[in-house]
């Protein structure tokens, strides 16, 4: 069998010397070649920031949704102010009413009514303490105070018209 090692001589592969500038030329050519397409990390950064922001916003909203929805300290303070002013006005109007009313039954009915409305107010106040986030309860509190004040104002106006009629009749006689 023929030995393949003896089939080729060194002369079959003449050794060629590389030029001295070969390395520089190679690097130059390499530098001039169009660069390979880079992966678009910019989009991914924007997407990541966006997702992060959406996530944070959601957590923030979720926390707020479970917390008190309205500023309960502010409501309590405002309500206290309103209550004080209303009660002062109701007291004044009650004294004015007593000054003009002569019908004992009417005075008794109004006293009962105001006592009952005051008891209702205390009950609603308890509900408010338990659930300050419920504006229907706040509404009930305000309406209770308004009812008391309007009842006293309206009845005085009523009495005034009745008395004016009496005065007319007396003048006619």
């Amino acid at each position, binding site marked *: 069998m023929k030995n393949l090692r003896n089939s080729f001589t060194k002369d079959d592969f003449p050794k060629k010397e590389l030029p001295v500038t070969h390395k520089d030329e190679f690097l130059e050519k390499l530098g001039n070649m169009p660069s390979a397409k880079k992966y678009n990390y910019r989009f991914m950064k924007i997407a990541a920031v966006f997702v992060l922001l959406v996530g944070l916003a959601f957590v923030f909203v979720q926390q707020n949704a479970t917390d008190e*929805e309205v500023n309960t300290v502010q409501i309590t303070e405002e309500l206290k102010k309103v209550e004080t002013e*209303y009660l002062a006005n109701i007291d004044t109007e009650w004294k004015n009413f007593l000054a003009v009313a002569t019908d004992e039954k009417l005075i008794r009915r109004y006293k009962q009514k105001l006592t009952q*409305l005051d008891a209702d107010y205390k009950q609603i106040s308890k509900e408010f303490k338990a659930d300050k986030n419920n504006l229907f*309860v706040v509404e009930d509190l*305000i309406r*209770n105070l308004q*009812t008391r*004040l309007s009842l006293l104002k309206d009845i005085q106006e009523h009495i005034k018209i009745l008395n004016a009629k009496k005065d*007319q009749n007396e003048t006619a006689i």
Partner: protein
Amino acid sequence: MKQQYKILLLLILITTGVVSAQEVVVYKKDFEVNKEGNVTVNLFTDDVLIENSIDDKVHVNYSVSFTKYSKRQIQNYVEAIKVTTEKEDGNLIITSRGKNLKYRFFEFVTMTNRALSFKSKDTINRRKTKDSIVKEIHAGYRPYLRSIKTKPNKTKYKYEKSKRAKPKFVIKVPEGVILRVNGSGSQINFDKIENQTELKIKRGGVILDKITNSKSRFHIKDGYFYAKEIEGAQFYFNDVYKALIGSIKNATIENDFSKVEIAELNENVEIKDYNGVFWFYNLNNNSFKLDSDYSKLNLYGKNENNNLINAFKSKVKDGLSPAANFTLEDQNINLKVANGLIYYHN
């Protein structure tokens, strides 16, 4: 769609986890009851619709439709609703505590100035018909929040304004059973109920289509009352700040410190009033009994030839002082007005 956008959309959906619209059944059960038994409904801060059952059973259905609520928010909401039922000797007791509606995206600015600038609005110059009253009833109850000045909380508003939780609580009752309804801070709606009904409610309101059972009794305190048609029953109003009645006949009203508007006052109506305000828009009536003290009565159609208007005018003339103190006993008209004020309108 590019792969990146798909991933991004998926991430957003996973992150928010918001359910766009979903109906959740809170309670659903049917009960057999005695034909002449009692069904008692106890309501605390809840709204209910009571209507006729098509079979012999009581059907209790409570569901809530959510829009843009997260799973956790839905869970919190549903857990706050408590419905219990108890059946005993063929009678049924249904108790419900609802979740109050909250004005979630509003905050207080102040209420001092507006709340205190309150002025009584007793005068209604516009004459109302039964149709216009019905229209007003359909518009629904408007909360009284005018006295409370609020502003949208911008940080929450955009998110919250699109959210909605719509509860639907329906109780269907068969004919013949006696209904006993007790409510606190609740709205009770009746849809053509002919059952004998005993209702007591404090704070809240009653809205009814038509009531015909003369044995029914409605006690309403510190609330509102809307009825399209009354053909029977007894009503007890105490501090009712708005009562709207389309038409009424064969009924009695005992009224204390309440404001009542009646579009059509028909036959066999008896009213006993103390310090209330009434608006009678159409007095199509030849039989009327009124016993009043310190009442304010507004009568409409002053130029019309009407028995009742004429009866009032025979005692208190239009254009003079509205003060009225008289008793009038006719065949079917019985009027007792003490310390009253009578105003005539066109």
